[in-house]
């Protein structure tokens, strides 16, 4: 069950503050990295929302993001719509696709859910890959960034764009945390814990899960809109299943079921990638090793582990119950 603890608020402020400072005082290159991080972090929050809290480990989040980016681009570039309605339609497409996937797969679980989402994601990927009208594997260009001059902002300025990205990341976090603390989110955690009992208490769990996927799709769609605006070019590469796998990696690396962990995971992964690619062409291997180690170390992730330690440190007094051996385990589940 989700609680916006002080620790999480502090971690979020530190992470966002770091990104803002890094973008403000860094080079053009640093600003590009910050945008990359925000896109991945938004996507990871979106995946943590359904996987960490709803138990729906999706391998189609890359595709959801890609669909938003494609629909946004089709509307803007092919049909000449203004950017705001195009973006809204892109988000709507992501929400519909994601909600549809959630609805259809509501009765599957475990590896079958993973496979089903993989299939739906690859279906979308193949569709765009094969579509000549949409540029096939070459993708599409010609995207322009939002015109926010009425706010006095020029999004073509790398710094403004990066800071706006950080702002959107914050917004998505807030949306996710409000949803998770609402009655809906609480019940979502209940479904994750014991779906059968939740049904017996009168909750239509299939509808609930589909709605949760739709909410998650909205967040992933945000990442897609920013991604399209960032590179001003999109290709089917956005939708390929390994992108979704990488997002899952970020969630695990940061700490699944903590919501702020994925943000930290995204910072670590992107920074690591960029640092490593300076030294070696084989950074994928190192990422793979880190992933394996993260799972073998207990799968709590960097932030998740720190949270467990700090909680144990600040509450050292043993509770009245003589349950010492299971105490640490309870804590970790409490936080999840």
């Amino acid at each position, binding site marked *: 069950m989700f609680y916006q603890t002080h620790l999480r608020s502090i971690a979020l402020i530190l992470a966002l503050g770091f990104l803002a400072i890094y973008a403000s005082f860094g080079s053009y290159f640093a600003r590009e990295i910050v945008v990359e991080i925000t896109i991945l972090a938004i996507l990871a929050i979106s995946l943590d929302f359904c996987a960490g809290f709803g138990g729906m480990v999706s391998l189609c989040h890359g595709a959801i993001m890609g669909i938003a980016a494609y629909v946004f681009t089709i509307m803007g570039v092919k049909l000449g719509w203004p950017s705001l309605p195009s973006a809204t339609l892109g988000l709507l497409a992501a929400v519909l696709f994601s909600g549809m996937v959630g609805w259809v797969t509501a009765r599957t679980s475990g590896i079958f859910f993973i496979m089903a989402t993989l299939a739906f994601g690859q279906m979308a990927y193949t569709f765009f890959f094969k579509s000549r009208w949409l540029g096939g594997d070459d993708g599409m260009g010609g995207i322009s960034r939002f015109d926010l001059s009425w706010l006095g902002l020029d999004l073509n300025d790398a710094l403004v764009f990066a800071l706006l990205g950080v702002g959107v990341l914050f917004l998505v976090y807030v949306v996710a945390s409000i949803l998770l603390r609402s009655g809906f989110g609480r019940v979502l955690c209940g479904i994750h814990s*014991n779906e059968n009992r939740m049904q017996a208490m009168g909750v239509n769990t299939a509808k609930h899960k589909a709605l949760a996927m739709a909410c998650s799709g909205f967040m992933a769609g945000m990442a897609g809109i920013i991604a399209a605006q960032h590179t001003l070019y999109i290709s089917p590469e956005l939708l390929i299943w390994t992108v979704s796998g990488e997002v899952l990696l970020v969630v695990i690396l940061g700490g699944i079921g903590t919501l702020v962990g994925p943000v930290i995971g995204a910072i670590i992964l992107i920074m690591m990638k960029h640092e490593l690619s300076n030294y070696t062409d084989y950074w994928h291997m190192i990422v793979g090793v880190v992933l394996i180690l993260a799972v073998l170390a207990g799968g709590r992730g960097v932030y998740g582990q720190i949270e467990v330690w700090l909680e144990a440190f600040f509450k050292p007094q043993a509770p009245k119950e003589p349950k010492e051996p*299971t105490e640490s385990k309870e804590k970790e*589940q409490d936080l999840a």
Partner: protein
Amino acid sequence: MLKVDQLSKDFGGLQVIRDLSFQVADGERRVILGPNGAGKTTLFHLLTGVKQASSGNISYAGTDISAMDAVGRASIGIARSYQKNNLFENLTIRENLMLAASAATGKSNWFIRDASLHADVKTRIEETAEMVALSDQLDMMVNAISYGNRRQLEVGLALATKPSLLLMDEPTSGVGPAMIDRFHHLLDSLPRDITILIIEHDMDLAFSIADRITVLNFGEKVFEGTPAETRGNATVRQIYLGEAK
């Protein structure tokens, strides 16, 4: 009033419930007795809509609910506690009760407000915890509390939905005499506007709380009557009490 009319259920040719009819009045405490395999738990599955009957009808409060699914039946006030604990293991007792209370009051459709902070939900959590004697452990994780406490929470989850019809599947299964007394007390203290069907193996408890008793054997109703009548019935003694004692 709960009305069961000529209910049958077969699993691949095996008849688990056979032509079963009975009625339970509002506010009644009805105990279902029967040896293992008599079809008691299957009857509960059919009443809650987890399984659909092969034939026959179930009506509750004047409406035919035979075609309604489990979610629908839960939302008209039919709740159930399980023979094997079916709890939210990795959550606290408070969170468990909160989920039941939110589910029953439609707060699962609140997308912004926090149901756990809502006054209704809070009082319901406290009231239920009081009823099942778990008030002082509200913030314990379920997987860290004792088996007896979990049995109490099992009933608590059903009660927190404020049901009008409560089906309890062996609430005292696996607990000691002291805990059975507690359950006895709990059952006595439940408001009379809740109709209760209870599968119970502890004879003393069963006979002392029941208004009427229905005895099942091989999926058929073999007897129905007051506790005193049940005690005196030869068939019942033979198939059930004789076997148990």
